[in-house]
């Protein structure tokens, strides 16, 4: 319990620090955030009154506390260009990003765990010697470049998949779930998910392999061998189960990182998710939207880090719960 409270306090501290950093970046950086909003043609007086309306005439510390209170209530302001509440825009984009992230992660981890266990089992073989550099190379290839090649081959040359977006023009759905489960959406999802999974599978694969190698030397595995169990059963029931723990933690951490880390894949495939909104908002100097998208992405990252900590503490009794922060 004390461990839980300490981690929670830590996460809240980090979150507050990130929110503060954002406030300072958006207020103190060169360039007036209002320049895009207030027309040059207005008189000085009306400009001042608009500034007062937004609270920009208040001292910085007062602005900071108003901002904090607003962020806590999900009040992120209005987008300059879309003229809609930032909260609504980012919340509409979140499920689209999560659909991509989650499918990509699941595919990557299914493949990575199985292939990693296999490579650990066949340690020292020719297969392992060839696979490891190939896996490292997939971690090193920029995702957007892989996406470009897949697009060129499978969308433009072969015409098997759409070349971008998340829906065919004119499609209408009665509910969000119906949209996310429609065949059209899934058809659009294939290429981005494959690109993402191709990039992600390296981590679970290498992690699974190295923890398997560690676990294989543990006493309970030796014990199982001594009991006369077959290699296959030892690998599957004893070693693999315990090697899954770091992989599960990595999965949770990746989920948090990817909500904002998918930016380039979303751009290549015109996927209308959170990352694409962030890029478009930044390019258009739409500060409230850029700030809101960034905060949501940071929140996802920090809360998933917290969940991963919990996961680890609950699943592995060897983690000491009263370690010093």
């Amino acid at each position, binding site marked *: 319990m004390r461990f839980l409270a300490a981690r929670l306090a830590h996460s809240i501290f980090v979150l507050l620090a990130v929110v503060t950093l954002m406030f300072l970046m958006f207020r103190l950086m060169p360039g007036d955030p209002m320049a895009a909003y207030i027309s040059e043609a207005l008189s000085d007086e009306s400009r001042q009154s608009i500034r007062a309306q937004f609270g920009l005439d208040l001292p910085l510390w007062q602005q900071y506390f108003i901002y904090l209170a607003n962020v806590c209530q999900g009040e992120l302001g209005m987008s300059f260009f879309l003229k809609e509440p930032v909260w609504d825009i980012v919340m509409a984009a979140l499920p689209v990003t999560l659909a991509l992230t989650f499918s990509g992660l699941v595919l990557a981890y299914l493949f990575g765990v199985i292939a990693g266990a296999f490579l650990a089992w066949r340690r020292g073989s020719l297969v392992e010697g060839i696979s490891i550099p190939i896996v490292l190379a997939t971690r090193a290839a920029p995702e957007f*470049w892989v996406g470009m090649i897949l697009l060129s081959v499978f969308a433009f040359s072969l015409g098997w998949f759409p070349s971008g977006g998340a829906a065919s023009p004119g499609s209408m759905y009665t509910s969000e779930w119906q949209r996310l489960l429609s065949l059209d959406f899934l058809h659009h999802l294939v290429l981005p998910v494959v690109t993402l999974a191709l990039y992600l599978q390296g981590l679970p694969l290498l992690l699974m392999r190295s923890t398997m190698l560690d676990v294989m030397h543990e006493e309970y595995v030796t014990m199982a061998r001594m009991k006369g169990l077959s290699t296959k059963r030892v690998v599957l029931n004893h070693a693999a189960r315990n090697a899954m723990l770091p992989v599960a933690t990595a999965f949770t951490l990746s989920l948090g990182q990817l909500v904002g880390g998918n930016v380039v894949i979303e751009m290549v495939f015109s996927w209308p998710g959170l990352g694409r909104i962030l890029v478009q908002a930044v390019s258009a100097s739409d500060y409230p939207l850029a700030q809101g998208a960034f905060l949501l992405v940071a929140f996802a990252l920090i809360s998933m*880090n917290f969940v991963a900590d919990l996961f680890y503490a609950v699943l592995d009794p060897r983690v000491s719960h009263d370690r010093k922060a």
Partner: protein
Amino acid sequence: MTEKPDESRPSVSRLRRFVKLTTGDPFAMAGVAIYLLFALTAIFADQIATYNPLDILFLPDGKVAANRSPDGQFWLGTTNLGRDVFSQLVYGARSALMVGLSAAVMVVVVGTLVGLFSGYFGGWVDAVLMRLGDVALSIPFLPFIIVLAAFLKPNVWNVVIGVSALLWPNTGRIVRSQVLTLRERSYVEAAKVSGASHLQILFTHIAPNVLPISFLYGSIVIGWAIFTEASVSFLGFGPSDSVSWGFMLQDAFVSQALSRGAYYWFVPSGLCIMLVVTAGFFISRGYEELLFPKLRD
């Protein structure tokens, strides 16, 4: 790796082992060879490139040499504006090397200093520096660099600043943990007793021993920075007056090279990024076995 000969023994033997390991491990050898190849290309870019990478080229009949497939004159073809892809690729190595090396140097310097002070002095210095590191690691990486690029003028240094501002804690933490054990060693005690100052102990007795691990993290950062620069340029936040591999990919992407199947335009630059980053992985793999000998069996 320039280390003074008068340093304490552990680091010297480590250095020797490093050299031995690099020449013994085919992966590390391949990594070093790739780095050398790209470094040489970057240095001699002016001699290797067949054209100025941003010049618009013309054919003998006066037409712009746009969208040419690879041939004897344009080794990797030309872009839709008639620029030579091969020459862009060669100059791309130069900006990649610059971004990679400067980010790596900054991360190594900041991370090592933080780790040294944090581990050696402990107490509130340690607490403040480590909490700062926690915050840096909790900031979404690419989104932060994009926001940073939005406020500052499009510039290569945005990436270098962003990468170093967010990646120093990894190096800092690992250096700190090394310092925690090093400061209890008898030769450090001996130096203290003989009246050496804190800074003397830190920089002449402890620092040389943590340098190998700093360099390990540095070699990973080179790849990361090049990778990140490519992503930022691809998203359109890079400088438009210098040629980088990310710039080439963005140029190809927005100029419909994909629908025309102009593979010669966008495949080579991505391959170069992949090769350089993989080289970093290969080298650090060798290092890893050196630093964590338990993995060697």
